[in-house]
């Protein structure tokens, strides 16, 4: 049994192609069943986000499985393989495990360290579990991937800094105002830029949204969207007096807000701090405004600069994260290599033989007067017992191996008899709370498979 990955992501395929190959959530279970019907593999799950489409599978025959999965993608999406094969990548074995760990830890993301991907993988895994297309190997693999992601998150600073312009703006606002609660934002302009920025602030906790625009109707429309208040453009200063944060994004060719005007407003505000965010090009706010005490001005370039610096920081942290991933890959691969039948039988026999020898020696030392013949009989007796006991399980294992269903038994034997090479983290007393519910559904899944 081998872990394989087939897919494409934001680096290998343009968005148009990714959209063509994406899976819809409501039809995902059906797709999962179709994949599982392929004879070359036994378990699978599909991860489909706006940046990647990937199928994770446990394959009986890895080359055949990779071929089958590519073929499946082509048929399912009614797209000739030639059109997208160049964008596809496939990994097997250790490489595949590493890839999945990296994806879950957000090391393979467009914005390294962004947190959404972990949730997306959890969702994809949940769907596969409900569709009963994931089994022992994917369960362990994903459980481990969540663990790796958690380690990366806590042991490195990869997700510490904001890396989008609007999250940087929110961070800055919090460094001035501590929190956005009970704060008022004034939007100057009613375009898409303002709307987006406002959405970010409102979800960050802003209480009141004021909107002003040259065309009053558009201000009203946008204000309604946020249950806010529209202000006539001529009365902008009224808005400046009330707002804590001002976002300006108009296409006005000259400055709309000037130094002297803000100096007066700040005085009228009794020096209450005000934070200007100028995302217009050309600028709406005179740069000198930033020199006024208790007024803070960031334009789009400033925000972008902070963003780039934070991204650089993340990339440094990513090096540490890669080391964690490497370490975890080794552990995982050790476990799943142990699911081979021959070494399992060998170590099982070895364990029984050791027990037999130890107990026999104890008995013999208690009865030093036994004759050689009697000793030989005891040897033969104990060996026979062990062979008889092991006969049925070993036969069953060999049979299951031919049918490629041995992994469950192998894992059970590893755990029941505590053989070396047991599952990583299987005796972890504190599993990641975030995956507990996932685990539960997996267990019920495994029961129903039996």
């Amino acid at each position, binding site marked *: 049994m081998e872990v394989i990955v087939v897919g494409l992501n934001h680096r290998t395929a343009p968005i148009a192609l990714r959209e063509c190959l994406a899976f819809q959530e409501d039809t995902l279970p059906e797709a999962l069943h179709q994949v599982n019907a392929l004879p070359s593999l036994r378990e699978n799950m599909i991860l489909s986000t706006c940046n990647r489409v990937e199928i994770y599978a446990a394959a009986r025959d890895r080359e055949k499985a990779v071929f089958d999965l590519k073929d499946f993608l082509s048929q399912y999406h009614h797209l000739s393989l030639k059109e997208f094969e160049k964008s596809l990548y496939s990994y097997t074995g250790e490489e595949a495990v590493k890839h999945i760990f990296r994806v879950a830890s957000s090391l393979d993301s467009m914005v390294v360290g962004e947190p959404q991907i972990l949730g997306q993988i959890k969702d994809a895994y949940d769907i596969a579990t409900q569709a009963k297309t994931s089994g022992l190997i994917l369960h362990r693999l994903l459980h481990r991937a969540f663990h790796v992601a958690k380690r990366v998150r806590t042991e490195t600073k990869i997700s510490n800094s904001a890396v989008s312009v609007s999250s940087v703006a929110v*961070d800055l606002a919090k460094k001035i*105002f*501590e929190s956005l609660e009970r704060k008022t934002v004034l939007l100057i302009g009613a375009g898409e830029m303002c709307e987006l920025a406002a959405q970010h602030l409102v979800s960050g906790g802003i209480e009141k949204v004021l909107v002003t625009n040259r065309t009053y109707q558009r201000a009203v429309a946008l204000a309604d969207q946020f249950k806010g208040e529209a202000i006539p453009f001529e009365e902008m200063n009224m808005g400046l007096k009330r707002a804590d944060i001002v976002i300006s994004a108009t296409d006005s060719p000259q400055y709309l807000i000037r130094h002297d005007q803000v100096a007066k407003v700040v005085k009228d505000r*009794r*020096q209450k*701090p005000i934070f200007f965010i100028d995302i217009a090009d050309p600028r709406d706010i005179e740069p000198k405004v930033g020199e006024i005490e*208790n007024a803070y001005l960031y334009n789009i370039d400033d925000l972008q600069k*902070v963003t780039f610096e934070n991204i650089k920081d993340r990339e440094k942290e990513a090096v540490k994260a890669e080391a964690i991933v490497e370490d975890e890959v080794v552990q995982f691969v050790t476990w799943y290599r142990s699911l081979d039948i021959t070494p399992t039988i060998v170590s099982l026999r070895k364990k029984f033989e050791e027990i037999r020898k130890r107990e026999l020696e104890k008995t013999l030392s208690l009865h030093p007067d036994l004759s050689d013949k009697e000793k030989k009989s005891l040897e033969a007796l104990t060996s026979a017992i062990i062979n008889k006991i092991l006969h049925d399980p070993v036969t069953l294992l060999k049979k299951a191996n031919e049918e490629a269903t041995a992994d469950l038994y192998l894992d059970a034997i590893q755990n029941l008899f505590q053989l070396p090479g047991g599952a990583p983290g299987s005796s972890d007393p504190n599993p990641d709370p975030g995956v507990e519910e996932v685990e539960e559904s997996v267990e019920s899944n495994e029961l129903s498979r039996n």
Partner: protein
Amino acid sequence: MDTHFFKLAALLYLIGTLAYLGYVLFLKGALSKSATMVVFVGFASHTLAFLLRYAEAGHTPVTNLYESLSFFAWMVIGILLVVQLKYPVKVLGAFLSPIALILMLFALALPKEIVPLAPVLKSFWHPFHVFFAFLGNAIFALAFCCGVMYLLQEHQLKSKKMGAITQRLPSLMVLDDLNYQSLKFGFPLLTLGIITGAIWAEYAWGRYWGWDPKETWSLITWFLYAASLHQRLTVGWRGRKAAIMAIAGFLAVLFTFLGVNLVLPGLHSYANW
């Protein structure tokens, strides 16, 4: 006996200070938590030292420079512990605990024998005077730290650097609020300290006010804080200006407390060593 506990407290403050600084460097929450624990134990030991000395001397043991420095440090740590309960300002320890530590080290270098109380100091008003004055001073130390942090943070934000310093320092709003709260509590305490001092002076020297250097400087300090409070309430001085005032005010406090004793001769020079 009391000096053993005093030295133990100084040692614990040293460890606490290092842990607080470690927190600032590595941002490990556990460091800041354990620093507070250590400092708390140090504070308990310091309190014990104070009580033992009180029992032995039979009067409030704030009569010479060693005792005053120790008492000041004790108040500063007390303020640090109280503020940490209410405000989420983890870096504060890295600013306040070094101040207490310096006061402790200074005190360590001084003679620590209990000397019989000078007759002029024997008064009902003495404990009140030192309590108000030093609690006020400790609160102004807090305001000073907030002022320094405010200026640093403001500079970062104005120069558009969102780096390690920005990340570690609290928001401007919290710093300014702490500064204002300090002023609100510190100023009345300073006023009470001066008033009780004047009453005590009437008993000790037969006049309420004699323009002795200590008295003069405490009045200068009082005017600085009064101006700061007045401006905040009338024209909304806050942020940068308030931070500068808090720093200037605390420098005046320090000069009133130490500079006057060391540089200018006067009636309060009993506090010389």
